[in-house]
């Protein structure tokens, strides 16, 4: 296991240094997304406007938190998922399936995206700056860090499920990017959505829960929703592994 990890890390560093243009463009474009979200938040709160119950700082915590989680997901899983997307559609999955390691993890972790590490550092620093303005305890800070990892894992598991669905819905190319788009829409305060949307995306498909969890935690501490979130994460992980096993059986190779 450790040898695989070391090999992947070495390969990723080499790719990062060889494909410098790609690395720079990746870094710049991902950063643009964060900047635009912050500018938009600025506009929302300009002219004395405000979202009831949310200060501008709390809104920025929401944005930087979601982006931090997204960049953590990007660092470890985006390269794997991009390749998995193409491989399933083109029937190229053989190399992954023949190996004597878990095909589930092998297909998901094919490389570490180094530019995203820089993006993460920038976003994380911003998050800390905004958190400092709220005056939080050390315990709260530790929990927020855990939440970043948790939400990143939630993004991973949901993406994995969507990609596995490609085994069945072969023509639906857009499925690979749905989770990313959903998380973009959901990086807003829960209360702006109609009740029914809130109920679906908090309790059934916990995307709103995943994005708002830090702000909820900072306001109300650890309550039932917190445990519920962790349980759902484990549940979706189990579902994704189950679907993956089913999907491989349905897989038709193009070789």
């Amino acid at each position: 296991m450790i040898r695989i990890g070391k090999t992947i890390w070495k390969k990723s560093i080499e790719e990062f240094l060889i494909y410098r243009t790609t690395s720079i463009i990746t870094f710049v474009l991902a950063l643009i997304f964060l900047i635009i979200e912050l500018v938009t938040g600025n506009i929302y709160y300009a002219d004395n406007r405000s979202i009831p119950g949310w200060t501008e700082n709390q809104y920025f915590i929401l944005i930087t938190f979601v982006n931090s989680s997204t960049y953590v997901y990007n660092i470890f899983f985006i390269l794997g998922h991009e390749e998995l997307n193409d491989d399933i559609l083109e029937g190229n999955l053989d190399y992954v399936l023949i190996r004597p390691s878990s095909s589930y993890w092998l297909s998901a972790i094919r490389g570490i995206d180094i530019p995203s590490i820089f993006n993460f550092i920038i976003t994380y620093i911003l998050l800390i700056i905004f958190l400092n303005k709220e005056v939080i305890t050390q315990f709260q800070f530790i929990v927020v860090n855990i939440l970043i990892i948790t939400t990143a894992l939630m993004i991973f598991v949901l993406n994995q499920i969507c990609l596995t669905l490609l085994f069945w819905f072969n023509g639906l190319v857009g499925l690979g990017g749905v989770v990313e788009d959903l998380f973009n829409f959901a990086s807003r305060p829960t209360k702006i959505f109609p009740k029914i949307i809130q109920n679906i995306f908090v309790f059934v498909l916990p995307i709103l829960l995943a994005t708002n969890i830090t702000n909820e935690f900072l306001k109300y501490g650890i309550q039932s929703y917190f445990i519920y979130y962790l349980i759902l994460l484990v549940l979706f992980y189990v579902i994704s592994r189950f679907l993956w096993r089913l999907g491989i059986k349905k897989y038709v190779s193009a070789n």
Partner: protein
Amino acid sequence: MKKIKKYMPILYLGMKDNLVFRSNIILTIILQVANLAVSLWIWNLLLPHSDFINMARYLILTNTTTLIFTTTPLYYLAGLISSGRLSMYITKPISLFWYIFLYSFGRQFYILIFYLVLLVILSNNFIIVVFLFFYFIVANFMFFNLMLLLGELSFWIINMWPLRNGINAIYLLLGGLYFPLNMLDKRIYSWLQYNPFSLVTDVPARLIISGGNTNAIIKYFFVVFLWLVGFNFLRKYIFKIGIKKYEGVGA
């Protein structure tokens, strides 16, 4: 005449693919509607009712234009380059540019009709509608050239996903999909309004809602034309450089 006959099946293919691969189109529309809905819900909380109505009209118009001026050609060309399938097309005696353009236009077709109907309903100024009709033709070519130009980046970068993120974000901001561009600082807005993304979304929306004088109309037409010439030239030039770096094998 013969040339046009040669390319017609491609246009037809684009229109047909819309119906055959329905689910993809439906998914795209659903996601765009979701984006619009989120923006509307937020502004509903932030603005008093009368201001919100104006905001809603603007956002609906900009979000619909996004469905016409899509980033599809960008990813199509990028896909051809990164998978090596480009070799198939450049060795054939057809123009790659017109192939992708007609295919994309075929796919735009139904949304375009829907938008024009929307235009006639929402606007009370006949001159603006006629102007926008011609404006869209030129703007379509301009935007298409821009998309191909950005797709040619694929000659140099190995991953496509950062492009998706970044271009999407730029389109969201400059296309006025989150908020009207004139809410930005005046000093920035005075030159930012002439960027190609805003010219196809923000400008038509504002013209429809608040009308415009002949001077403004001619000004925007001229700027679109300038961008068109510039992007066309860059596209050809970058392609020449990029094809030298092209590996032609699946990446």
